[in-house]
Every structure is written in C-alpha cells, then in structure tokens.
C-alpha cells in the first residue's frame, strides 16, 4: 500500500476524514470501491482498543509529602493517582455532559432540591467488598461533617440532609441546585468503603486499578482491578505514574521512550518537540486561567474606575503570545470561556486601550502613588514576566505599577487572598455555577476578589433552580457582564494544557476538564 493511502486510511479510521471522502480519494489513486471498503473495515478494526501491557506516565506536580487521602488531594500527581484507584458517583465527559459512574441513575424532585442517586449494583471495591449506598453516605459524611478537612468542604456544605436506603442515596439541599450531579463528580468525592473512616489513606476504592506501589514523590504503581465493572476502559494490565518534576528530565524521558505521556510541556520547547520523532505534542484548550486579583474592598481597588483603568491597561493578546507561547486564548475579565456549557459568546471582548485606561485612571482620582502588584514565579508559570508586561502596558497609559516579587514558599497562605493585588490562577470547574459559587459568591470561602454584589448573588442562586437552559444561559450572561464590568478580576488569559504523548499510545482525545484527559489518559488510552 502506498504512503498516501495508508495515511488516508488511518485518518479515516480515526474519524478525522469522512468515509465518503476516503472512498473518493482511494478511487483517484486507482482502487476499486469494494477493495477500498474492505481496507477501511480492517483499519477500523485495528483502531479498537488493545488490551494488556503497561502504560507509564511522567508527571510534574508530585511531592514526597503526598497522601492517598482523597480529601487532601491538591496537586496534579495525587489527582491522577486518585483517578486511577478511585471512582466517584459521576464524571464529566469531554463534551461537558454528566457521565454516570457509580451512580446508575439520577433523579431529582421538580424543584431540584432533593436528589436521588441509584447506586450501580455488583460493583466491587479492591478489598472485595460490594459498593453500597451506605458507603456513599459515609463518604459524603466524612467530607462534610464538622471534623472534615476536605478540599470539597465548600461543595458539600449546601447539603441539608443525606440518607441511604437500599440501593438509593438521597441528598436534600438547603437551596435548589440543578448542577448537583456535577458537584458529585468532584475529584475529592471518591467513594471509599465505609467512607474511608477506618483508614482514609488506604487507597482502596472501586476504580479501575489497584494501588501496588505508593512511594509519594517518586512513583505510584498500579495493576488492573480484575473485577472492574466497566470494560470500556482500563485496557492496560498495569500502569505507573513517575514523578518527574524537572521539565527537561520529563521531556527527555518521553523522548527516550521511558514514559508514554507527560504533562506540562514548556511552551518554549513546544515547537522543537513537535518535530521530534516518535512523539506528538497536544495542546488542549481548557478552563484554567491565569489572573490578577484586586480586592474590591481595599483601597485603592474599592474604586471601580480604578479597577476599570487597570482592566483596560493590560495587553491580553501580548500575554497569550509571550507568556503562553500562543498556546492559549485571551480572557475577558470573567472566569468563563467557550469550554463551559451555556457560554455566551456575544459578550464583547475587552481590548487593551491605553487612552481609555488613562481616562478612567484620571476619573478615579488616584493620587499617583505606585500601585503594588504582588507576584511570585509559583503563582502561575510566567507570573513574574506577566507582571512585568502588565507594568509596561500600564505605564503607557500613565498608570504606575510597582512589582513586588514574593517567595513561592508560603505564597498561597501569606499573599494570595491576603494582599489586595496579586497574581494567581484558577483551574476551572466543570460548570459555570461551580466556578462562580467557588470564588465570586459573596459568602464563598475563596472569594479572593472580595466581590460583594447582591444582584450577582441573587441571579446565581436563582440560576441554580432554573431548569430551562435558555433562561439559565441568559442569567449566566448577565452575571458575566456584572463581573466583567464591576468585579475585581483581571483575567488576561486561559491557558491550554500542553502535553507530550508517545506514538505507542492510541485512543487519545482532547478533554477540556483537566490535564492528561482529566487525569484518565492512562485509564482510557491503550498501547497501539
């Protein structure tokens, strides 16, 4: 078979080329339609998942202090590790729809206040115990009771009561929330036997792989859970996650074939790596964004004219090009982009406008003293350079910014959410409600812009109970407008996930929910 035909065949089998187009091109290359059809059928079969082997992942974001307790997962490696051995009630698929995992069926009362999850029958934990509604109840209790240390505490706080009966787990909420199934897919809420009360760090779950080796900060080894319920995934017999925090070493490991996939490819080497043999570099648009946050309650940021001046004084396009190396998209001063369901793409894009910025700066009556912007190299990759670009573009509008570089160590406890103007990042959430509720609702624990707006709050609460998606979309759009024009958020860019994948891997698909196919790349892919 000649090269072009082979290429076409592969593209068609992967669905990147239509069948009709393939037959047409094959005909042009002098092949009969019947023969082309046979060829195509064979190629499609070849794309079916292959079982067996070992998939190895090299990752940044692991420390020797990591634990297997899902309640305390905060960085990338623990997240991916937990996705390997654990399973939640629900999951979010790449298109943003709810995927049923341990819940087999979800129903709600018409007011979206009471939700019932029917638990999938015959699913087994790694210790042989069957998953029951009681385990689900115990898990949710552990994350929400008064002794909880869970990162999901903010999510499960809105629960008024919970109960388990037979195979049904029922949740009654304080106020309606149409997005509860999404919240149940939060990565902390992994169902553990008896809620993990005996030993939260045991790593026993109902996920596709069992924990075999747990050396935090070094490597995590897994083997397939023989009685796993879902045979559509978990193709490899074994999988291993190696912690390779050094960027150069990670890329070298991929090039040398020691690992099959890596996260966080430096945008600086993106072009070089693209031409390297045997590997592919993927950039996936996600919901994560890099931000500068102003406290709306602290002087001088309590003046909306000054906030507007700063929003107009940042050059978003330049940041995407220079900080992200083009691997991302511009932000619009609210935390939502087209990767979210119900996104309104008619909201006008805010541009860099030094004249308008100077106008608002003057109008704000600021005394001209330098405005202190705090940043650290760990706030987000390139945060110091981004602050410098901001300083320059603001200077062109006559706004004096002073950059204060803080140490990475302790940045999240001493600077972020404490100082009135600092650099930060957000990883994004599966749905708009969750993003807004996490960081922009007046009562949110992480309201890091100190944004208190009654109208915004009331629309947000009302939208949760609104089951008509068109009306809901309009409500989200209104909230976006309020935040964009009055909030304390300067959102210059949404970053892509940039990842390296070996040619030995098949079944890769882009997933905007998180890095490495939302932490499931090694579970969903197979060795070609």
């Amino acid at each position, binding site marked *: 078979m000649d090269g072009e035909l082979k290429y076409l065949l592969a593209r068609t089998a992967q669905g990147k080329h239509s069948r009709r187009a393939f037959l047409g091109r094959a005909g042009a290359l002098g092949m009969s339609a019947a023969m082309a059809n046979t060829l195509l059928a064979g190629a499609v079969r070849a794309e079916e998942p292959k079982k067996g082997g070992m998939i190895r992942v090299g990752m940044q974001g692991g420390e020797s*202090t990591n634990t297997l307790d899902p309640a305390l997962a905060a960085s990338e490696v623990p997240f991916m590790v937990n996705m390997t051995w654990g399973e939640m009630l629900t999951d979010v698929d790449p298109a943003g729809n709810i995927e049923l995992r341990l819940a087999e069926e979800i129903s709600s009362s018409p007011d979206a206040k009471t939700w019932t999850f029917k638990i999938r029958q015959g699913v087994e934990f790694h210790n042989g115990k069957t998953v029951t509604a009681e385990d689900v109840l115990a898990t949710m209790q552990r994350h929400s009771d008064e002794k*909880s240390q869970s990162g999901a505490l903010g999510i499960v706080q809105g629960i008024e009561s919970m109960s388990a009966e037979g195979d049904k787990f029922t949740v009654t909420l304080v106020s309606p929330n149409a997005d509860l199934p999404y919240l149940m897919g939060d990565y902390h809420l992994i169902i553990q036997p008896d809620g993990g009360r005996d030993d939260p760090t045991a790593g026993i779950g109902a996920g596709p792989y069992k924990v075999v080796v747990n050396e935090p900060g070094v490597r995590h080894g897994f083997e397939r859970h023989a009685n796993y319920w879902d045979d559509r995934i978990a193709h490899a017999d074994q999988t291993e996650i190696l912690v390779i925090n050094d960027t150069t070493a990670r890329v070298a490991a991929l090039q040398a074939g020691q690992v099959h996939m890596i996260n966080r490819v430096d945008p600086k080497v993106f072009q070089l790596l693209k031409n390297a043999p045997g590997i592919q570099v993927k950039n996936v648009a996600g919901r994560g964004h890099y931000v500068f946050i102003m406290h709306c309650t602290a002087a001088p940021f309590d003046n909306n004219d000054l906030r507007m001046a700063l929003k107009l004084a940042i050059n978003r396009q330049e940041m995407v090009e220079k900080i992200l190396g083009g691997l991302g998209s511009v932000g619009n001063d609210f935390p939502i982009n087209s990767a979210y369901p119900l996104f309104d793409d008619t909201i006008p894009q805010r541009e860099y406008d030094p004249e308008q910025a100077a106008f608002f700066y003057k109008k704000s009556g600021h005394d001209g003293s330098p405005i202190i912007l705090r940043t650290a190299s760990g706030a987000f990759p390139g945060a110091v350079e981004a602050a410098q670009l901001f300083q320059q573009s603001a200077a062109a509008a006559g706004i004096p910014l002073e950059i204060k570089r803080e140490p990475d160590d*302790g940045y999240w406890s001493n600077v972020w959410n404490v100082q009135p103007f600092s650099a930060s990042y957000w990883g994004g959430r599966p749905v708009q409600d969750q993003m807004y509720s996490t960081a922009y609702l007046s009562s949110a624990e992480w309201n890091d812009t100190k944004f208190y707006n009654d109208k915004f709050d009331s629309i947000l609460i009302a939208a949760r109970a609104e089951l008509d998606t068109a009306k809901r979309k309009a409500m989200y759009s209104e909230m976006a407008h309020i935040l964009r024009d009055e909030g304390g958020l300067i959102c210059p860019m949404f970053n892509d996930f940039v990842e390296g994948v070996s040619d030995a891997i098949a079944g890769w698909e882009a997933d905007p929910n998180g890095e490495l196919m939302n932490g499931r790349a090694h579970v969903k892919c197979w060795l070609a």
Partner: protein
Amino acid sequence: MHPILKLVAQRLSLGLLLLLAASALIFIGVELLPGDVAQSILGQSATETALRNLREELGLNEPALTRYFNWLFGALHGDLGTALTNGQDISKAIGERLGNTLFLAFWAALFSVPLAIVLGLIAVRYRNRWPDKLISGITLSTISLPEFVAGYLLMYLFTVEFRIFSPISTIYAGMSLGEKLSAIALPVMVLVLVVLAHMMRMTRAAILNVMQSAYIETAELKGLRPFVIIARHAFPNAIAPVVNVVMLNLAYLVVGVVVVEVVFVYPGMGQYLVDHVTKRDLPVVQACGLIFAAVYIGLNILADVISILANPRLRHPK
C-alpha cells in the same frame, strides 16, 4: 585509656551535644517560617473550617515548646514519629531514602576519590607541564559548570543522542544491582565531575608543599624514580589535609546533592527533605536534619582520627 580512644569518646559526646543544638535550631527555623503544615497541605484550596480541623488533628494547637519536647522524648526513644503530611512512618520512609542516598554517594566516592588522588599525583609528577595543566584545566572547568547544566548535557548526550543510559534514575527494591548501576550511571558521572577538582587540587597542593622538604631531596639523590618518591615518600606525609578535603566532599555527596536528585529523578534524601520543608512537616525535617548533622560530625571525627593515625608525632604524643 589510649589517647585516640579518649579523643574519639570526647568527640562523640561533643557530637551528641551538637546534634541536640542542631535539633533545637532546626525547630526554631521551621517555626519561624511563615505558614504552617495545615495551610501548606490544603494550599490554595484551604477553607477556615478545614484548616481548623486539620490543625486540631495534627496537634498543631499545642505550644511550640511542648511539641519540641514531645518530639525530643520520642526521638530519644528511637521513635521518629509519623509525617504530618501523609501519615507515613518516618523511620521507614527515611530508611529507604537514606539507603538510596548512601548508594549513590558510595558509587560516586568509589570513582571520584581514587581518581582525584591519582590525578593529583600525576599533576605533581608533571608539575607545570602539559599533563598538569590539562588535568587542572579539565577539572576546574567541570567544577565551574553548575551541576544541572552538566546533568542536562550528559542526559542529552547519553539518552537522547546515544541511547545508552536512561534519563530517569529512579531505583527501587526488586531491581538487580546491574540495573541499579545502569540507572545511576549519569548522576554518578555528574557527581564525580563536581567533586573531582576540589580533591585533586588539594592533593596536588599538599604534596607540592611536602616536596620542598629535605628528605625528598635525599630520596632524589638516592636515585629513586620521581613517581615512587611522590607516592611512597611525599603522599603519606600529605595525607592529613587530603583526608580532610575528601571527607568534606563525601559529606557533600550525602547531604548536598538535591539538584542532581531533581534533575535525574533520584529518590534520595535531598528531595525528601526539600518537599517536607516546603510543607513545614517538622518531624521529617528534624529527622533529616539530624541525619545530615550526624553525617557531618561523624565524617569529621573520622577525618581527625585518620590524620592522627597518619602522623607519628600525633600518634605518640609526649
């Protein structure tokens, strides 16, 4: 008591006092760092309630002094406790990490120490001629190169261009010795390059110093070959300063190789310590600090004892 035994006993008891002082200093240092372990664990996702609950569970609400003496009491009974961050048993975790660190240090020392001394002898033999200049030039340039640059260069050469070694040096139980050695080949090379110059220069300088002595002239007049003079007559009298530098470098190989560990993803003590300092995990930092201090103190005692044994005047004091 034999004077050397007496000296060792004195030094050891002094060493124990030093360790105690070190543990107090480490404790104060970590306490002074902003933020605490609960905040570090929960990071950006910390809520007030979660923080309070975690602090309660980890016992962080007790006064600092109580916590220090609790820890000290446990440590004196051989119980290093469990890591605050992930509840792992510290003795077990450190045992593995320390084993790895010593493994790497051992092989690096096995190549670098003899090589440095032989190169030093050669440099003296051909003093100020081209072999001396070549050796000095090469070793000085390798020591001037930052470790991570040397690491990346070797990595590029041996793993990407010529696929001889693996870029990841992770070793674990179950690997054969051959596999382990192949895995650590690159970090060993980098470490040898880094420590070579210091020891080589000291050997050269110390021997050159001795070469001015009258008895060397006598040996020359006896017609001995230059290399025999250096190796048999000059080197034994230059051992004391050389041993001191060698011990200093051995200590470095144990406690100072965190950069090399990171570049080659080697699961040693350095990375382990840095991770736990970042998270303010005091018991682990204390344990690592004590081990590092003990390594320094132990190697220094060893260096002193060897210096004394090598010097007859010190060996038989009046």
